[in-house]
């Protein structure tokens, strides 16, 4: 249908400044350059943070400098291209998985529409297949015979500054959530392709501050926040005081206590920022209720590992401190809190990086006698596994009516769900502590949608990007909010607790966000408590 005015209307609006959307592409994807403008990129890492990381033993973060993605000149080293290609060669030899992922994709497109970034932006370069193709095209050009001979006809292209900029744009529009991998018939882990692109970019000094500063903090003081031991302790003590005011229970917690049975490690955000604080209060109450012999550590005071979003050397280093601390304190095993990517590092990389942790024992719950053989190698049990086991054996008393102000749904945090298969334990817990409903089937369990801000993308300068990337998740929450009256989105990840809060504030302002352990803390009945009517659970202001 030809509608002249409509065509004009269409023309006048599509000729605006938007490049990523708003126009029907008329050129091949290789010929469409990326354009950086305020709001579509995360700020580069500060010079001093890169210098600090580069000064650390075993770490390599060269080319510290002031730079901006908006400038034409990124101040790359003169031989940047050789560095990138040598880096790619080294990784192809070192990681067999990368070589396979580069070779075996048949571009079937099964992953194409599974990415939340694609679904929120409509940008074809956010199709996982095309995002990987950004690297694969260079691989073909320099490492395959077909690419060397046939060039572009074989989908190959030369490494240029434009390609490097494209890598930066799209490897930071991927949260490594691995939803696409669930649908790949070959099992290509596209998150690992993103990880490799980010590693290569770090070789020439291209990285973002939201990742490198927490990572350097973690390397320096043990946690992302950069909290020193006394501050970390103070924060947990404050939470203990709050618990006493609310419930009359004085929890008996300790720090760096040698000989404790269990070391407890959780993301530092749980002891520092809302709404994670309430989740931490849940942990403290639960351990008090069962009289667990455990200790916090002010050194291994971070479950998260931003090394995963950086490079394998940094990931290994940050992961190692957990086990170093477990060894130093002489504990039997570790319980891990509600964290996302900590569990991915632990289940998928820890053993080959720092394991086996044979100085620890296979975790056995001293309360129920359950032997967690699933953690026989890592010696680390998830708080939800531990709690579900306590409930199963009737070792804790729960009063569901204490959560009557809550109608919950459950967001499967990407990493626990897809990287460790933790799907039923949190649901089992929820069944016992709160009235809750599931979101639609194709948005939960292994098909769960990311919060849109994982892998260090939860920074405020890219808020629009985060909101559109989080749309598929928010859309499913909206459905259960509208149809079932859901007012609380529960999850088991600290990044989720922070980012889903912002996501809900934008898309579904009537829905709040909490950790599963907060709901457990609300429902726990403990001998000797003087808990009044807390109409908002542990969040009640007295």
């Amino acid at each position, binding site marked *: *249908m030809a*509608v002249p005015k*409509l065509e004009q*209307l*269409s023309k*006048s*609006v*599509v000729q*605006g*400044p*938007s490049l*990523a*959307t*708003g*126009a*029907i*592409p008329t050129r091949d994807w290789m010929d469409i350059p990326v354009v950086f403008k305020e709001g*579509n990129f995360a700020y580069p890492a500060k010079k001093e943070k890169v210098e600090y990381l580069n000064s650390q033993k075993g770490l390599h973060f060269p080319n510290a400098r002031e730079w901006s993605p908006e400038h034409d000149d990124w101040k790359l080293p003169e031989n940047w291209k050789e560095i990138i290609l040598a880096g790619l060669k080294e990784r192809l030899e070192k990681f067999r998985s990368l070589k396979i992922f580069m070779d075996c994709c048949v571009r079937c497109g099964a992953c*194409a*529409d599974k990415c939340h970034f*694609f*679904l*929120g*932006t*409509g*940008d*074809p370069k956010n199709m996982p297949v095309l995002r990987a193709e950004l690297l694969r095209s260079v691989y073909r050009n320099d490492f395959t015979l077909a690419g060397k001979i046939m060039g572009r006809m074989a989908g190959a292209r030369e490494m240029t500054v434009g390609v490097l900029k494209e890598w930066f744009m799209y490897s930071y529009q991927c949260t490594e959530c691995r939803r696409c991998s669930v649908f790949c018939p070959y099992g290509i882990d596209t998150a690992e392709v993103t990880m490799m692109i980010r590693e290569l970019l770090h070789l020439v000094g291209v990285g973002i*501050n*939201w990742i490198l*500063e*927490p990572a350097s*903090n973690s390397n320096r*003081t043990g946690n*992302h*926040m*950069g*909290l*020193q031991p*006394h*501050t970390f302790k103070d924060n947990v003590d404050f939470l203990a005081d709050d618990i006493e005011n609310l419930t009359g229970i004085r929890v008996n917690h300790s720090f760096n206590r040698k000989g404790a049975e269990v070391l407890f490690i959780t993301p530092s*955000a749980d002891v520092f*920022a809302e709404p994670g604080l309430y989740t931490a209060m849940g942990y403290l109450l639960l351990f008090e209720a069962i009289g667990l012999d455990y200790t916090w550590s002010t050194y291994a005071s971070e479950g998260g590992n931003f090394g995963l979003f950086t490079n394998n050397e940094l990931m290994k280093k940050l992961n190692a401190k957990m086990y170093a601390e477990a060894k130093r304190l002489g504990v039997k095993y570790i319980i891990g809190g509600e964290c996302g990517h900590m569990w991915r590092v632990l289940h998928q990389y820890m053993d080959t990086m720092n394991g086996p942790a044979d100085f620890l024992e296979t975790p056995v719950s001293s309360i129920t006698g359950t032997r967690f053989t699933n953690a026989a190698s890592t010696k680390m049990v998830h708080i939800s596994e531990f709690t579900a086991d306590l409930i199963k054996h009737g070792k804790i008393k729960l009063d569901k009516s204490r959560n009557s102000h809550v109608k919950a749904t459950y967001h499967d945090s990407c990493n626990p769900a897809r990287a460790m298969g933790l799907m039923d334990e949190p649901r089992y817990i929820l069944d016992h502590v709160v009235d809750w409903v599931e979101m639609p089937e*194709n*948005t939960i369990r292994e098909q769960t949608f990311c919060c849109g801000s994982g892998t260090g993308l*939860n920074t*405020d300068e890219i*808020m*629009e990007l985060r909101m*559109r990337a989080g*749309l*598929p998740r928010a*859309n*499913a929450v909206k*459905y259960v909010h509208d149809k079932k009256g859901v007012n609380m989105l529960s999850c088991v990840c600290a990044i989720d607790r*922070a980012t889903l809060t*912002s996501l809900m*504030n*934008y*898309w579904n*302002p009537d829905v709040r966000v909490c950790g599963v352990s907060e709901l457990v803390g609300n429902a726990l009945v403990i001998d000797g408590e003087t808990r009044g009517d807390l109409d908002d659970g542990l969040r009640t202001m007295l």
Partner: protein
Amino acid sequence: MELGEALKNKREEIVSKWVDYTLSTYQSSAFFLKEKDAFANPVGSTIRQALKKLFVLLAENADPKEFLAPLEQIMLIRSVQEFTPSQALAPINAVKHITRAVLAADKQASGLVGDLYDFEFAVDLALLSGFDIYMQCRERLYKVRIREIKTGSHILTDSQCPTALLNNIRNENSETVKSN
């Protein structure tokens, strides 16, 4: 045939073209148009549903307040995507042109084109409300950003060592106490 009846008869065709036009503003419009599952394709399905609702209201000359709900569904999405404000809003206006063209192409209905004034005025009102809602969405976004900063997550990257900060605050407090 009366205009109301014509709009009712042609509703499906007009809405379908309206959805096509709106989704053509995305690079991957083919996917947004094709996938019908609301959870696998939130942009496509939300826009389809909202435009359908909005067209019925426009055709019925409904109270403009009722336009707000479907408009909000659309603007929440388009105000965080890479559109300029005019690009975000333009599809609302498109229904005027589409409706005219669809009626004009039908021999029986072509005589009704001249009666479209009220309908088009309703579209004008919807467009104006759309601007208000677009701005409300942007303001909501800014508030989300402010709230994030105020709740302390920015301390991760935008400040000095928090322990040192806390110490500074304590020192300042104690100095204030001393000077008093």
